[in-house]
């Protein structure tokens, strides 16, 4: 048994509840705490990078689909200026997504150094 992002237990997400129209994708989406727990498992199995990925993912669970898609687009080559990336990172820090924010700050520096950010 696991708890979904919506707070509902999977044991409660059944064909009966689907018949009643009482299930949304939120009821079948992973909870951040589960990802944090799975990150520990990954760490114990000699893959700290997978663990770090799962911790970043835990942060992203709280961000809506379209925003996640937009963040991915922003990180593609030539899409964002360095300042735009830094602003995105700052907003993520404010939304308690520090690991994702750090990744984007790092990208901003790397893109600036290698000249692949959008020119301001």
């Amino acid at each position: 048994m696991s708890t979904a992002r919506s707070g509902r237990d999977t044991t409660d997400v059944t064909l009966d509840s689907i018949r009643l129209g009482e299930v949304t994708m939120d009821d079948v989406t992973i909870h951040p705490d589960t990802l944090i727990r799975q990150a520990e498992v990954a760490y114990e199995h000699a893959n700290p990078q997978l663990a770090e990925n799962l911790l970043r993912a835990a942060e992203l669970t709280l961000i809506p689909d379209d925003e996640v898609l937009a963040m991915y687009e922003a990180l593609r080559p030539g899409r964002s200026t360095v300042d735009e990336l830094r602003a995105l990172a700052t907003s993520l820090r404010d939304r308690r997504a520090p690991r994702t924010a750090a990744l984007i700050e790092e990208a901003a520096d790397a893109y600036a150094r290698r000249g692949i950010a959008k020119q301001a």
Partner: protein
Amino acid sequence: MTDTQPIGRFRFMDAQRVNLDGFAVEDQSLGLIAFNADADPDPSLVLDGGGNVVEMDGRAATDFDLIDEFIARHGLDLSVSAEVMALDDDDFARRIVDINVPRAEIIRLTAGATPAKLARVLSRLRAAELVIAMTKMRARKTPSNQAHVTNRSDDPLLLAADAATAAAFGFREIETTVPVLGDAPSNAVAVSIGAAVGAVGVLVQCSVEEALELELGMAGLVSYAETVSIYGTEQIFIDGDDTPWSKALLTSAYASRGMKMRVTSGGGSEALMGAAENRSIFYLEARCVALARALGSQGVQNGGIDAASVSGSVPGGARSMMAENLMVMMRNLEACTGNDALMSESDVRRTSRTHPIFIAGTDFVCSGFGSIQRYDNMFGPSQWNSEDIDDFLIMQRDWTVDGGLRSAAEPDVARLRRRAANAVRDVYRFLGLADFQDVWVEQAIDAAGSKDIPAADLMTPLEASRIIRQSHVTMVDVVAALDACGYEIEAERLLAMLHARVDGDYLHTAAIFDEQMNVMSLVTDPNDYAGPGTGYEPAGSRLAELNSVRQQRSVSDLRDEQAAAAGDHFTVVGAAGQGSDPTEVSIGVSAATGRAIWTTLSGLSVVDVLDELLAGLEEEGCRGRIIRINDTVDLGMIGLTAARLSGSGIGIGLQAKGTALIHRRDLSPLANLELYSVAPTVTPELYRALGINAGRHAKGATPEPLRNPYSDMAIEARFHTKVVSLVAIERTCLKPEIGPEDLELRQ
């Protein structure tokens, strides 16, 4: 003018299929070299006082490209770097192969090794060593396999029927894609439904442009992703419209929705795109694999992949593709080991490319076994395709190797295909996506490929996809529709896949589901190979499954087959005595002839064979006499016994399976006059000719010997199992206490 035409032997060799393949002269400037190019850097790793990487593989941090930087920042365990970088290449290579060095120790060391270090160490391993290393290093103990399910028309009914078929044959992952991008949502839904009809817990992906693929995943319409491509040079990475950071975010995005994903690389892609920077194929791939680990991906699809034919064109190319897969395993990641894009026109060569990986076993032997027809594979033909499924099953049986497939019986597959096609029709109607005509459904069920479905309409998947996206249809809606249409089992199966996204256990390395929805992964099913008697070994019901192929036959099967042609044609006249008529030629028949065996290996009835022999003798003015020899299965002794009883001293020996010879009373058993050893190809005309020659021998002539009908068929492969059974039947008919008997033949 001189004739420049090559000699016949070379004309013949030139015509062989392998000569359709392209082979390149090594050219480092084009990146056409498998291992160890001059421009590949010497391995190095230098840290500053603060533990930051200031140099990696000969390049200063200030000069790092994006790939270097991401690997240096995220990809290396700096606590073991000094140890592993100082390790002698051969010493490291030997530890990889050494069964007494545990997998975990290799994982520990590899975590600190730079791309150039691993590239150099793995270039030391020879083919047989790669097999042992792979056996030990793969993450999941139980091997598995992935199928491609696509077709030219994105026909939802055929996709569903073929997905169900793939699941029935044992594939645990199914990858689909589209010829028309707009069809992707429909393909995802149709394949997911079909897979659920076929088996519990089959993972499904739809390989399309990165953002759309993620969108499909977020809607739950697919259960994993693989088309997250990474490259070994910065230029090609950016040309692919991504950076290591965008890929890292994508990797996390999938995990944030509870979805398994792996990245795709594969040697040779940089050379194919003309930007290999004079590096070897293997070194560039080593950068990809290090990056994959740095990104936090649980796994990698590599081993050539779309550029397999580039690797395949250079010396050592097949070895380098296998070493790519091994490198993934050493980075403690799931290995989805190529063997997908067809890299040769030659059946021998493509089998040779796959076979060492197949016998070692990997997390997915093929990262896309084309379970459909070659022409329907929208990735391009695979290394293995639907025409090879029986070959693959039999290879598993030959080597007692679990390649992830199992046999499926025709009635079961027919039933599953019908249910899958009907389920998609009903769900599409329920959701208002499409209405399918009965004729289309029936054609899809029976089809071996999309060319068998003239009723398919190309606009249907496009329109269905438009509605899926516009009305935000999710997998929850698909489950509800299946349930409402009476497919409760499949609804439960797809709901279980949604539950798995909440559990998150299948985010771990090399995760698949078994058919009870248990996760099998690095965590729950770790590979523990440490030499003979350890690690994965198919046993119990799985071993029985591997051993049982639909083509196998037993003696009793053959006995039944023979009994179907039974007739009452022979009457025993009495004990056979010594003949005195000089025109008499005896035909000794084996004990089972007309008793338990009525049909020869060439499909003739034994009565017809005897008729031909008798007619041949008659043409020469001789009289045939049929004698059953009850005390031996040996054809030489049958013929010799007949010759000794014959008035002319000449006898014909005939086994019920059709093997025949001419013998003479004064010869030793094995020194016959003429022999038809290849029973399966003997025709009525040849039996008549044998009768004629026997008659000529009886008259003291020296006839021109008959030529055995040899061919290029693998006659022994086709018939030896039958021969074993037929000889066993012959033995059961022996009655040594009864001497030779004269028979009367009735029509």
